């Protein structure tokens, strides 16, 4: 399990963040004692550090420099000052990424994942999803079952992968739209229906006509 050190002075954010990271399968290390942070980092050896620049009574930038000397873990700066100058300074001081408050949770998680992958600490991204006889290749954009293969469009691919990740659970239309927007596919409800119909057609072509079930008033289920 990868350890993420959270350096954040606002207790509400710190605790929620710790919870969310743990739900995502990381081990979180919320720092409550702001003295000797570099020493704590050296002891705990985190895989990634989330650092709030606006800590009371100290300069986040110099803290980053000290952390850099102490451990090799990548640092993501978190700040509520969104001046461009800060960003340049943060990245030049060896921060690996920079995110401004208020951030949305999917964006934060995506950034964490990306930094971990870039620094070689994260797992390789999943390419193939398999469930219930379906095999989805994300890089090829193709789904196969019963020895037959169908090519998917970008939209269909994201819909299917979301359903496969949550196989067995009901995924609401609103959640599907949210997920697609996460992937920069900005669709509305009608387009989702159209895409869903096409996706079902393609699944039928490879011999799985009823793979995606409609749960009336709740959503879809694979």
């Amino acid at each position, binding site marked *: 399990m990868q350890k993420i050190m959270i350096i954040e002075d606002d207790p*509400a954010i710190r605790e*929620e963040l710790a919870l*969310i990271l743990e739900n995502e399968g990381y081990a979180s290390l919320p720092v409550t004692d702001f003295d000797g942070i570099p020493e704590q980092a050296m002891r705990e050896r985190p895989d990634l550090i989330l650092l709030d620049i606006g800590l009371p009574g100290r300069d986040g930038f110099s803290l980053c420099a000290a952390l850099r000397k102490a451990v090799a873990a990548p640092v993501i700066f978190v700040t*509520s000052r969104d*001046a461009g100058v800060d960003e340049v300074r943060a990245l030049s001081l060896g921060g690996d990424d920079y995110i401004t408050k*208020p951030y949305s949770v999917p964006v934060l998680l995506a950034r964490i994942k990306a930094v971990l992958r870039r620094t070689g600490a994260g797992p390789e991204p999943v390419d193939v999803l398999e469930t219930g006889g379906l095999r989805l290749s994300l890089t090829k954009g193709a789904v196969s079952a019963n020895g037959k293969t169908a090519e998917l469009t970008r939209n269909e691919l994201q819909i299917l992968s979301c359903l496969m990740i949550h196989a067995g659970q009901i995924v609401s239309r609103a959640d599907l*739209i949210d997920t697609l927007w996460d992937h920069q596919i*900005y669709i*509305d409800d009608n387009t989702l229906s159209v895409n869903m119909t096409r996706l079902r057609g393609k699944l039928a072509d490879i011999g799985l006509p009823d793979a995606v079930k409609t749960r009336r008033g709740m959503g879809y289920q694979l």
Partner: protein
Amino acid sequence: MTPGEYLSDRSVRITLQLIGAGLAALFLLATGTQPGVLIILLIAFLLIFLIVHLFDFFRLRSRLLELETILEGLDQKYLFAECAPPPGGLYERKLFDLTRRAGRAMTGAVSDAQARQREYREYVERWVHEIKAPITAARLICRELDGETRRKLTAELAQIEANIERALFYARAQNPEQDCLFRQADLGKIAAQAIENHRALLIQSGVRVETEHLNGVVYTDEKWAVFLLGQLLQNAARYRGTAPVITLFSKPLGKQIQLVVEDNGIGIPAHELPRVFDRGFTGSNGRARGGSTGMGLYLCRKLAGFLELGLHITSEEGKGTAVTLTFPAKESL
């Protein structure tokens, strides 16, 4: 100062001098001075009279010209009395002194007002900075709620953020030089960030966003451009029609790049179009819908000015609105 102005200013004095000369001539004539001598005396008087007034006229005129040149050359015109050379005459000097004192009081008032404005701006920025912590916490806490409640609360939080952002940029627009940082920026990234910032409003409004050919590189301040684009997206979502679609695409214009934000919304009446960028202008749409402050597009125009962005709007009632942003070419910055 024209000769006419001079004469009318000195009319009382000149009349008195002429009457005095006439009376003296009558008195001399009555006491037996020979007319020939009298005429010589009168001619001498008139010569002196003319010379004095001509000299006076040209002296005053050149002095006024000099003062005007000084005023023209000043950036802060209210500092005039501090920079002009003090006059010679007693009365003028006293007057000048009064003007200078008045000017000093004004200089003080102006710098007080500037300091207050700076302080206020700093306060707004600090406040925005502080309010972001609880909003972030609220967003994180929202994650624990079930689907529908979470979505509604997230949308409300996004609305709060959008309003805070607007206040921040309004404060920043007062002296933008401090924050503007021109850099190479990816148009696609700017668009994606703006859409992400307002996604709750867009999704809630049932909007579909189409992005086409958004891969240009522009030279601008990314954050300001994201904010500006966000205002346009919010408007497009607010004044939407049925089956709303927002299309974002870019196209080259010589060395410049244009970004077009097009919607199929309710559009703006032609006679209101020239005024949409005015401060506080809400228009018939804004009034019909309510909740319009008339600040969004006003801020857009202001920021576009600093970013040297061309901002052009076309609209047709019932058909939709298109806003074109023309990013400056790198060479012109």
